[in-house]
């Protein structure tokens, strides 16, 4: 059983297109995240949702819009893709409330490799 899963695993697309990446966690966690890892492996948080509510929104272009239909899913929609959006996008989840033994630990998905041509 995959704890945090992402689809697709690879995404190759043209500039200007709109695409979505999906993330699902079956850990029962209340918080989910999106991270971007650039070509130099630098990892930076983009968004965080707690129980479907946005709690972290870093300085990300508004072409990126996260959507959380329920607390087990956090999707990332990207409009008007640009060359600089090429990266690996990681979804993660954690249990923030009422979890003293495992609090704070974020569990990551396998990543979605996005290449914009």
């Amino acid at each position, binding site marked *: 059983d995959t704890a*945090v899963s992402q689809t697709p695993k690879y995404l190759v697309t043209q500039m200007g297109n709109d695409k979505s990446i999906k993330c699902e966690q079956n850990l029962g966690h209340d*918080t989910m*995240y999106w991270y971007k890892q650039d070509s*130099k*492996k*630098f*990892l*930076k*948080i983009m968004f*965080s949702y*707690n129980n479907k509510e946005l*709690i*972290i929104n870093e300085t990300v272009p508004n072409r990126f819009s996260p959507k959380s239909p329920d607390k087990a899913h956090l999707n990332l929609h990207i409009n008007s893709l640009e060359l600089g959006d090429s990266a690996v996008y*990681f979804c*993660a989840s*954690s249990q*923030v409330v009422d979890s003293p033994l495992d*609090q*704070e*630990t*974020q*569990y*990551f*998905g*396998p*990543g979605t490799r996005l290449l914009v041509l």
Partner: protein
Amino acid sequence: AQSVAQPEDQVNVAEGNPLTVKCTYSVSGNPYLFWYVQYPNRGLQFLLKYITGDNLVKGSYGFEAEFNKSQTSFHLKKPSALVSDSALYFCAVRDGEAAGNKLTFGGGTRVLVKP
């Protein structure tokens, strides 16, 4: 503000020798510190964390880390490295007194264990 520094881009070590990956941090409040490992074309795997309590933390695969408040460090160690430990290691910090659950990652250290 919170930040993490991993001063070494790469660490080379012979199999069987001790492995140390350095990490220093800066936070305004109490530091929550983490180590993750990333194997090629894979996601990040959690190794260990320090939230409170004993400064020496033991984690997965024989790794441990020591929280040193005076030196603001959280170095990762393994007494005897294996070839399979070759991977990219990330240190991360969160300010325990700040709202939200934002993790800030270091730039990563590539570990190469040679047979």
